[in-house]
């Protein structure tokens, strides 16, 4: 997704764009960046959750596997929130 940062540079360099066009381009690029961030996160979840939930690949994903994958996403997010909040407490207490 490094290419998206380059797109930001392009918008600045392209003096041929009218102001309104440049603003619209920045909006469109921001929307694509958001979509790309979502996709990158899904790749990351797959990295973790495939190993946890999928055993030997069969003819279809059974419901246990599907539930495991869904739960995996939610529990990872819960873990992120738990760590963030507890870390904030630790830092506030002045601990290392």
């Amino acid at each position: 997704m490094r290419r998206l940062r380059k797109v930001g540079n392009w918008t600045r360099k392209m003096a041929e764009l009218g102001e309104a066009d440049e603003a619209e381009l920045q909006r469109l690029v921001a929307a694509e960046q958001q979509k790309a961030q979502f996709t990158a996160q899904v790749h990351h979840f797959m990295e973790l959750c495939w190993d946890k939930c999928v055993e030997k690949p069969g003819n279809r994903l059974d419901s246990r596997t599907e539930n495991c994958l869904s739960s995996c996403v939610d529990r990872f997010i819960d873990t992120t929130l738990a760590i963030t909040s507890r870390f904030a407490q630790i830092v506030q207490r002045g601990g290392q």
Partner: protein
Amino acid sequence: MEGGFGSDFGGSGGGKLDPGLIMEQVKVQIAVANAQELLQRMTDKCFRKCIGKPGGSLDNSEQKCIAMCMDRYMDAWNTVSRAYNSRLQRERANM
């Protein structure tokens, strides 16, 4: 990529560049990068699941496993994608 692409995007010697055409190129690039990422990770995971002790070639069962693994990987991708999207919507609703 940065040099001389003005002409690719509807500009014609001093004319305005079209954001629509630029975005088409951007979306294609993103899609290509995503497909590459997907294939690399899928290959990794399916190699681990399907190939035990590496032999002289991929036998029939290994090839079948790889094919199934690819399909299941994409099914799993969709499941994870849906779950993540739902969670994001739930979080937004709670804000």
